[in-house]
């Protein structure tokens, strides 16, 4: 098959942020396969210098409007680690509940609005309004619910107000939590079941592709790691290894590779994957029974090596977060929710925080001077962690697609769908490196 393929997707659509795909095949020989990130840098780590510890989370929240809850949580955790602050059990549970709201919310957007149109052969959700109007409305209700759920806890979901170092500036009332619980069971779960039926009917349409890689996620002995835990990776043979959060640089190893335009990360293998699939592969046993049931219906079990099924793992996590959310609400109600004073700093130094945001493990690290002013920071973003893995997937996928004699258009769609499966959040790229090379 001595054919020519030229794919040049400038600014992949239905992803958050800007990414390009470049593939050149000349007379059947692959000359270039590239995943590029041309996002404008914003220098957040420089901008937080000289800011008071109470302001830092509200600034870095603006790294990303979609995972701003996650950035806020990673930020306050890092600040609390640096300032010697131990939050209360109630704050821990409220933050876990908020984390579930964000993962639910973001996964709903990705699966139903960004990924599903590909499975239905549509360029976006809008042409589906006349043909699938009820499902689109149901999707909009589910999305709006995520926003309301998060807002009850965090004040709002895009750049939350109430989450600060030391706890919460305000908490939901008992009545608000009771109403939230009732609305989850009476309004949201029926809509979710409708959406799940549609997704089950589409499950067979995900492309078949596998590549063995390393998967990194937070792991907690107490629960499926999202808000808290240690770093864990699982290798293709199933062996797992744990690392302390404060050692995050040892297992992320950001570096520059000439074949790529973005800063890459790796641990033991050439690249690793972060995100829903990485979490499911690491912590499947700790999923809620209802989530495991849906995983079974969708044919997902660990270890799953098909990156396209990251979207399926997100569906499984949506179910998990809804049921874990109910448990946390019940526990908060049983203990009696009350306003608590913010826990004050006991020291000023350096600290690290990690949380699982929708797209994977997120690290923030800060240092503070004796006045509580930030002297420097470091943020390692899941999308950046995944760039190398996307590139390696491309390098295995393109020859397979060529061998299967796929057309340029089919290849382009397969590559775009792969990028979308990672649900990249490129605005998050607080830092990346773009290496120009001569041809």
């Amino acid at each position, binding site marked *: 098959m001595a054919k020519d393929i030229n794919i040049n997707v400038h600014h992949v659509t239905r992803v958050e942020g800007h990414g390009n795909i470049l593939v050149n095949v000349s007379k059947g020989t692959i000359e270039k396969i590239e995943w590029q990130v041309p996002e*404008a840098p*914003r220098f957040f780590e420089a901008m937080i210098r000289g800011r008071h510890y109470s302001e830092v989370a509200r600034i870095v929240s603006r790294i990303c409007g979609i995972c701003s809850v996650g950035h806020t949580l990673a930020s306050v955790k890092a600040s609390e680690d640096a300032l010697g602050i131990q939050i209360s059990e109630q704050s821990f549970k409220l933050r876990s509940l908020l984390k579930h709201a964000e993962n639910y919310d973001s996964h709903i957007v990705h699966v139903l*609005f960004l990924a599903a149109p590909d499975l239905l052969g549509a360029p976006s959700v*809008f042409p589906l309004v006349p043909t699938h109007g009820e499902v689109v409305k149901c999707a909009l209700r589910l*999305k709006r619910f995520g926003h309301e759920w998060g807002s009850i806890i965090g004040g709002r979901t895009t750049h939350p107000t109430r989450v600060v170092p030391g706890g919460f500036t305000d908490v939901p009332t008992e009545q608000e939590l009771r109403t939230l619980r009732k609305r989850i069971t009476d309004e949201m779960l029926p809509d979710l079941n409708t959406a799940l039926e549609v997704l089950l009917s589409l499950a067979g349409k995900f492309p078949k592709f596998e590549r063995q890689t390393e998967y990194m996620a937070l792991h907690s002995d107490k629960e499926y790691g999202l808000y808290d835990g240690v770093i864990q990776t699982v290798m293709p043979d199933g062996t797992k290894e744990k690392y302390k959060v404060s050692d995050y640089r040892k297992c992320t190893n950001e570096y*520059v590779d000439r074949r790529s335009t973005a800063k890459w990360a790796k641990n033991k293998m050439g690249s690793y994957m972060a995100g829903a699939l990485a979490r499911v592969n690491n912590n499947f046993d700790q999923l809620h029974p209802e989530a495991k049931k849906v995983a079974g219906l969708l044919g997902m079990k660990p270890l799953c090596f098909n990156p396209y099924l990251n979207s399926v793992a997100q569906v499984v996590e949506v179910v998990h977060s809804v049921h874990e959310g109910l448990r946390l609400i019940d526990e908060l109600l049983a203990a009696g929710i009350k306003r608590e004073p913010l826990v004050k700093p006991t020291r000023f130094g350096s600290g690290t925080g990690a949380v699982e945001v929708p797209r994977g493990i997120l690290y923030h690290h800060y240092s503070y001077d004796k006045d509580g002013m930030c002297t420097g920071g470091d943020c390692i973003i899941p999308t950046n962690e995944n760039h190398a893995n996307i590139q390696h997937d491309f390098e295995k996928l393109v020859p397979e697609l060529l061998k299967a004699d796929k057309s340029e258009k089919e290849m382009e769609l397969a590559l775009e769908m792969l990028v979308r499966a990672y649900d990249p959040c490129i605005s998050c790229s607080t830092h990346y490196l773009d290496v120009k090379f001569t041809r």
Partner: protein
Amino acid sequence: MSPKTKAKVAFFDFTSCEGCQIELTNLGEKAFMGLLDHIEIVEFREAMSEKAQGRIDISFIEGSFSREADRKRLEDIRSRSNVVIAFGACAATGGVTALKNHMSDYSEAVYGKDAKMPHLDSSFALPVSAAIKVDYSVLGCPMSQAEFVEIVSSLLHGKEPVIPNHPVCVECKKKSTLCRYGQGDHCLGMVARAGCGAPCPADGIPCEACRGFVDHPNQEALVKVLREKGGLSEERAFNKSRIFTANLRSDAVKGAGARKE
């Protein structure tokens, strides 16, 4: 825009977090489907693969103008659009992305030895109006959903949108929110432009003026109040208003204002 044909609306993004676009999906079923009765979304990269053909009635631009390389894309959007609206704080004023404008070493601080690499070219973060003519702005970080609907509705009805020019303090009084200064905190509410409903002080945190200043803010008095009533150090009081209003301060970088027509 005749009432019989839907207005063609497009969304574009530059240097931003895309949170304002996400706020659109938070409008929910009723408001969103209601909007679609009156407008047709013809381009919105974050949510759709379709690209606009022909004229666009209203273009919303999210994000600041921070790279000379983006000027051409902005000019192209302007030439295709009847109305251009800065969508959110970054597009309207530079927002939080302008927090680096007074620093000279931001690139070195983040990229170290690689700071001079050409792709990291980033100049001052400026409002979109520094590059092209902007007709209206939806303010806020994130943008206000209610104001967005109000502006779209006004334009469809041929009415001039009204953007408040009173301080956030008025909204706290209307809501009976306790003053942050009375709680041992500080706040920028007295010089911050209202229109958000003052959610931050109500949630127990200071207003940081994400919607910008009211016209003619007294910045010297602000620093004095932050220092004397808010208990901030001289330096912190002076720097406080850089978070969202760096480009609106009297010491803003050159070019931070709107482009001269």
